[in-house]
């Protein structure tokens, strides 16, 4: 059973601010969902995590490809606030 304190701990880890109503609602709903997935505890499983389906990552050569300054600018300018080609945020405190 997830308590309000438990929900707040999760919210803090996930960096999501919750309202008081949300704390109550989510505690209840998440408890129910965790209760549902608890059925996995009953199953006998092997210790091995490796799957034998033969799929492998297709890696490319470990080389820098790079992008143009135009592309770079385009990406940086997606930020809500930009100054001197740097992304601007609020101060830490």
């Amino acid at each position, binding site marked *: 059973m997830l308590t309000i304190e438990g929900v707040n701990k999760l919210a803090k880890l996930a960096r999501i601010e919750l309202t008081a109503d949300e704390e109550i609602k989510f505690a209840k709903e998440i408890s129910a969902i965790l209760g549902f997935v608890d059925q996995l505890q009953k199953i006998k*499983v092997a210790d091995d995590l490796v799957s034998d389906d033969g799929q492998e990552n297709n890696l490319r050569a470990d080389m820098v490809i790079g992008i143009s300054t135009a592309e770079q600018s385009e990406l940086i300018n*997606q930020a809500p606030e930009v100054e001197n080609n740097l992304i601007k945020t609020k101060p830490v405190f």
Partner: protein
Amino acid sequence: MSFSYLTISQVKTGLKHKDFSCVDLVNYYLGQISKQRDLNSFITVMSASALDQAKKVDQKIASRQELDKLEGVPIAIKDLILTKGVKTTASSKILANYVAPYDATVVSRLKEAGAIILGKNNCDEFAMGSSNETSAFGPVLNPWDNSRVPGGSSGGSAAAVAADECVFAIGTDTGGSIRQPAALCGVTGLKPTYGRVSRYGLIAMTSSLDQAGPITRSVEDSAMVLNVIAGQDNYDATASAKRVENYLSALSQNIKGLKVGLPKEYFAEGISSEVAAAISQAIKKIEDLGARVEEVSLPHTSFALAVYYVILPAEAASNLARFDGIRYGFRSEVARNLSEIYHKTKAEGFGPEVKRRIMIGTYVLSAGYQEAYYLRAKKVQNLIKHEYAEVFKKVDALLTPTSPTTAFKLGEKSGSPRGAAGEAGDPLTMYLADVFTVSANIAGLCGISLPAGFDKNNLPIGLQILGAPFAESQILRLAYNYQEATDWHKKHPV
């Protein structure tokens, strides 16, 4: 010349023989979208660029140039997939004004093949949902009955195809999000094997399960689209290097002697009697066509949903951490410091279902719980994969219902808009809608849903065919033969 419910072949033939111009064709679909605005199946309509492209196609035809595989075919793309220079929102407030700086690989391949993008489809927020009710841009309505859901999360894509707003659409499927809405909307939806289609440019939700695929009017169209989008991609390390066969070539081969398994765990309780009846009829039809049908067993089937609802939240919590208001997307305007940017951006930008899943993911990955939840789920996943591998040694394909019921009413499972109130709605009830589809994602199989009948309210019923990894040819062949012998897929909403 009627533009009504054209298939890819019909469009290509019509354009080539100059039965109609591409501009007229695109205007038809833009008209269809405009007339049916209430369905809310599109978040962005790209009229100007679509017409521009149409003019170029007409010029190409006039100068007798050779036409590409999907030249001039008007399509739609789920708004979870990046389209360069066009808003891509994931149906979330947090990306409401985000303009994608690049095309997803599926998009660039479709563009290279000449397809014309009409717009971006509404979907459940970050693909989290089974009814298209969690979208920040309002729910999508089922074209067969506007008081009902189209299914999800690719609800907008399925509705658009069913309502003749495009020739086909591209959706994504993590736990059934192509197949289930296809079933509820009476269209054909294919989830390729994980790794068959590149995930580059798909806004990642569950990186080990997500897969893009076509939602079409026919199995033949699915095969045509798969031919274009499948294959290795240097931008996606999980895209398989396995050769892409021609998915059209084996389609019309008959299915005499094909071994089809009916997993008994999929035919237990919880299915509506009308769905059960339609599937029974479909099984008989497939036997008439020469296939050998036998019962099989997949004992760990009942645990697939629990495995899914541990793995999905864990990976989604990681994937959605990037939406923090710093580099792109929405940033809270009331944040006074860095920490508040993170906390308030997510509080204001994400909907309730997204928050729920992020927090569950955080829990199952947290110290002290990771072993008991996430690692355990991965071990059970291996059990399930192994079980399917054993069954596919005995049969060539599996046949099941796609969804336990036909389309349910808006608000019936979600309780209130976006599932926000929680009192009348119960997230778990919504999760159960995926019970027949999640196994394919968990076990890395391919799967297709196709129309197999209607209930007494004239709501579509879907049949699901599952295949071993990379056995798309097998399931497409079975699906094609069934579809050729029936005409459920030719029926359309009034």
